[in-house]
């Protein structure tokens, strides 16, 4: 019995290491604040008694805000009162994150392959921005969004649609005074938490 047990564990180790670089993975998210996420899909796979096989795809969480007015110009001081600047978000400030769950469960410990996906957002308070999240059925305004996604089979795809609203002040950006805003400004962090749920 001991020998058999040892073989099983060794095998499990090898499989786990083999899954360390998922074949479907095309890149890596990062915990750091970065201006652009260049890769738009990642697969999480594991091989154990309860397999999970989850693919997360997302649009670049890089938003474009176009100013239509820079605010009120003061001809005496040659400066803008930028508090009244206005603009609009490209694509209505909306991005979609799709989660496909092909996980299966053998019922051990009540795991059927289903997962709970939670979307949370942390924003820079100086950005003057709010957000909404929907999964098509429920709306969450400036709060965490949660949905269950069944395992492989039916209803195994869930989507979070993130919409950014509000008008960031012009002073929030590096501005050369002539209309050009130089660098993308990181204004927040979006996190998807995936967690298996048990029956």
């Amino acid at each position: 019995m001991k020998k058999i047990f040892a073989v099983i564990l060794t095998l499990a180790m090898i499989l786990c290491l083999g899954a360390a670089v998922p074949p479907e993975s095309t890149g890596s998210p990062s915990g750091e604040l970065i201006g652009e996420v260049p890769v738009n899909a990642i697969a999480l796979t594991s091989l154990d008694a309860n397999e999970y096989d989850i693919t997360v795809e997302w649009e670049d969480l890089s938003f474009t805000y176009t100013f239509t007015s820079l605010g009120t110009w003061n001809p005496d001081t040659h400066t803008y009162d930028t508090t009244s600047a206005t603009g609009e978000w490209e694509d209505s400030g909306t991005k979609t994150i799709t989660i496909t769950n092909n996980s299966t469960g053998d019922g051990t410990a009540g795991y059927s392959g289903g997962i709970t996906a939670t979307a949370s957002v942390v924003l820079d308070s100086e950005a003057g921005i709010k957000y909404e999240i929907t999964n098509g059925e429920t709306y969450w305004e400036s709060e965490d969004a949660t949905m269950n996604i069944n395992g492989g089979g039916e209803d195994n795809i869930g989507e979070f649609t993130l919409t950014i609203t509000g008008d960031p002040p012009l002073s929030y950006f590096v501005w050369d005074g002539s209309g050009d805003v130089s660098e993308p400004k990181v204004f927040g962090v979006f996190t998807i938490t995936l967690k298996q749920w048990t029956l």
Partner: protein
Amino acid sequence: MKRILALVLACVIAVNMGAVAWASGEEYNPVYTYGPSGDSTTLTDLNEHDLTFGMAITADASGASPAYYVTVTWDSMAFTYTGDGTGDWNPEDHAYEGGGGSWTGGGADGEQDTSYITITNDSSVDVYVSCTYEEATPGEYANGEPFNGVTVTLDGPDKDTLEAGTEGTDGDSTTATVSVSGDPETSIEGVVGTITITIESDYY
């Protein structure tokens, strides 16, 4: 011995899974919690991943409407010629010949033959300024007669750039100079011509 072996292997698995080297070469560390259960090493407990992304804004202000604030000031453009009565009367032509006179009405004090037009840009963007003079057409002549003997001279900007206003400085400005000279052949009153100031911008 069985328990020790199970514990050691479970820990090794957890470490390997916890530091997954994803394709880009960056390390991503999802949270795994594995717990051996009795003599079993079956992985049953929570599997949880956090995928974290930075969100960024690219702002574009190049299409925003600029603010225009251009001031044009001018002296009086109503000039008066006063003859000094030194000319000679020509009985055949019924007109004075020779003699002299002077122009007034121009300048800030109204006592000169020259007036000035000043254009100042306090806008948020550069503007371009031009000026032109066009003599009155026959339909505009005073009393149907041209101002023979009178010359109007305009010296001013020709698409000169007035730079955008910058904090702590006065607005950029330019000046056009309008002068009248000569001796009118007849005593008439009316429009001698039209000056046009054109202000342009690269933005609309």
